[in-house]
């Protein structure tokens, strides 16, 4: 097989795993949009906040330490203990659930029946608030996140592909794990929405929230539930991305990677988020492989949007989105 072909295959395979990483972020958007029609601008910041909280709990950091020290003249930063990863993850999930409850109680309860643009604006405000809260609570320095998932070149993929093609492909073990975790996550979400009482209620609200209300489903509960689920998805995305780059403010910008995925897959479809992520991932890697050297590289920020734009022209609702027809 010619080298170019092998390299293109390697790029495409890497694109698939990168696409899963994008899909992880997009899933959070889909969950909230599907259940409440809110485009949650703060999803990226939620991933950052969740990752910051996880590192903080793991390392026994005192929340608001800088503020406490500034006010009381103390010099405390750490409790002096560390938490096992699983306990820290459970603690972070609890924090994200509490966050979901607060968001429903103090923001969206007061905005029921408002225009979608108002709800969207509220999430912009929430994003900035959460960004500041994360900094004040855990500090702005770059933090190392180690949740025990191996990183680096996968020896198995390298050996296998070398045996088959005489050239060992590079695959990041972390991204392979991310694919596995994303699979489990999607499966759990599907099982939850299909086979549990709360899941059915969630789908009912997504289909027609007024009809759901009329049969006694609590909209408030559903909103807390869906924001909690989005918080957990944000934690998973924050863990995976944070393990690659350290936990720092830039993590919140991964939301920008999710937008083209949503346009492609549709804002209301969980499988759409996965498929959209994969298309974007593979598309951008192949584009960069074939045309990057000619146009000078640095295509990762704009290519996905260009691809999404092309899709918009032909299928505005996305691959799996619902076609909305409004009659006048």
């Amino acid at each position, binding site marked *: 097989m010619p080298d170019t072909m092998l*390299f293109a295959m*390697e*790029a495409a395979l*890497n*694109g698939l795993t*990168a696409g899963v990483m994008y899909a992880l972020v997009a899933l959070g958007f889909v969950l909230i949009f599907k259940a409440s029609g809110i485009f949650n601008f703060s999803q990226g910041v939620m991933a950052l906040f969740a990752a910051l909280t996880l590192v903080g709990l793991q390392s026994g950091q005192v929340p608001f330490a*800088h503020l406490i*020290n500034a006010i009381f*003249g103390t*010099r405390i*930063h750490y409790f002096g203990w560390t938490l096992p990863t699983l306990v820290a993850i459970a603690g972070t999930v609890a924090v994200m659930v509490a966050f979901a409850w607060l968001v429903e109680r103090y923001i969206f309860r007061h905005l029921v029946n408002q225009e979608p643009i108002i709800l969207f604006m509220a999430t912009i405000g929430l994003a900035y608030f959460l960004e500041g809260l994360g*900094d004040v609570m855990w*500090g*702005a*320095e*770059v*933090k*190392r*996140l*180690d949740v025990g998932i191996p*990183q*680096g*070149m996968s020896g198995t993929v390298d050996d296998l592909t070398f045996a088959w093609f005489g050239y060992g492909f*590079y695959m*990041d073990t972390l991204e392979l794990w991310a694919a596995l975790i994303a699979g489990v996550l999607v499966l759990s979400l599907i099982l939850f929405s299909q086979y549990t009482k709360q899941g059915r209620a969630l789908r009912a609200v997504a289909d027609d929230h007024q009809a759901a209300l009329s049969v006694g489903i609590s909209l408030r509960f559903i909103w807390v539930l869906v924001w909690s689920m989005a918080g957990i998805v944000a934690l998973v995305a924050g863990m995976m*991305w944070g393990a*690659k*780059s*350290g936990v*720092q*403010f*830039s*993590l919140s*910008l*991964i939301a920008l*990677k999710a937008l083209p995925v949503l346009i492609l897959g549709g804002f209301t479809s969980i499988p759409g988020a996965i498929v959209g992520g994969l298309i974007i991932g593979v598309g*951008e*890697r192949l584009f*960069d*492989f074939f045309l*990057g*050297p000619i146009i*000078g*590289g*640095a*295509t*990762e*920020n*704009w290519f996905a949007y260009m691809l999404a734009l092309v899709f918009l022209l032909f299928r505005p609702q996305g691959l799996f989105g619902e076609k909305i027809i409004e009659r006048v």
Partner: protein
Amino acid sequence: MKMTRMAAVLAVTMTAAAPALAETLHFPMLNYRTGPFAPGGIAFADGYQDYLTLINERDGGINGVPIRMTECETAYNTERGVECYQGIRGDNPLVLQPLSTGITYQLIPRTMEDRVPMHTMGYGRTSAVNGEVFNWTFNYPANYWDGASVIINYLLEENDGSLDGKKIVLLYHNSAYGREPIPTLTRLSEREGFELLTIGVDSPGQEQGSQWLQIRRERPDYVVMWGWGVMNAVAIQEAANIRFPMENFIGVWWSGSEQDVRPAGQGAHGYKSLAMHGTGRDYPVYDDIQEYVIDRGLNAGTGDEVGTVLYSRGMYAAMLAVEAAKRAQELHDTDVITPAMMRDGMANLVITEELMEELGLPGFGPAFEVSCDNHGGSGEAMIQQWDANEGTWNLITDWIAPDRELIMEMVMEDSLAYARENDIEPQCLEMAGD
């Protein structure tokens, strides 16, 4: 009537306040404590502020004139940086430190017009070395082209004087900053016979999968990085992932702080970068910072970052600004100086080893002199290497000089082209008041 009385009170208050304001030395700080590049911006800003606080607390200011600090948040955003400048330009700013190449490019013509000096230490427009064209901009002690040349000189030393047939990748932040070393490296590749491959990374650089796949395919001998913020940490992690030998991966001084290497853990062991100054708390000045600033609770940050690479850089920038102000006071025989006088101090700054020792920073930075035809200092830098086991940067070379002949040739080409485009007649400025 009420309004008239209020206006009169306001006028009296302002008149009374004016001498107080005038008898301070205004050092504005264009910081970024928010946004994607905040982790770097905070450490630099804290170092800068703590040193100025030290001068106020220990010495009562510069030769007894207190320093007045003002802070404006740019978030590393060029438009916001320009807005910050518009807000302070009428308030006698003695020296601007924009801490962003993008903001620097925007402020060069504005500061020329407003006659406000600007110091872009290790960043900004490289050809500002030519003080005949860029009268108000200074970039001592080293600039990007110096940095690129120092790296190549170091690699020449490592390869018995020849890079012929070697392949070097430049991985750069796709911005005005990241593209700065390309002309120098291109010239050097032609002269030294190595193959140069440039690979851009879009800001902020969270995703670099394609770039590192390409690097893996190309199998370069060395990777040189011009990154900033999260781009550095991701690149170092990706290099470790593809098992690129870390000792052959060298970053510029903006890609060589603790926060760039720590996220990669053990994988970053052996990574190298340029160092334009020393690092660590083993300098006597830190005893004073501890006593006069930290112990009094006047430190700008948490105190944890004292002695780190970017804190040290901020402190170094403040130290050079204070020394330039002292020089200006000496040249003009007055304690209260204007921005134009400060420019004279910067244009005639002399930093000697003895002075560095006297300031409690022996060997921390190079000795250099600034003049009208050289606003860029000596251009020397050292190489430091990360020890992941100890969690420290270790200097592995002495000061390495750049190829100043080549760089000055390029500086002249670029600066004179700028002068032609902007109708500037190259000339040295007279001293203020002459």
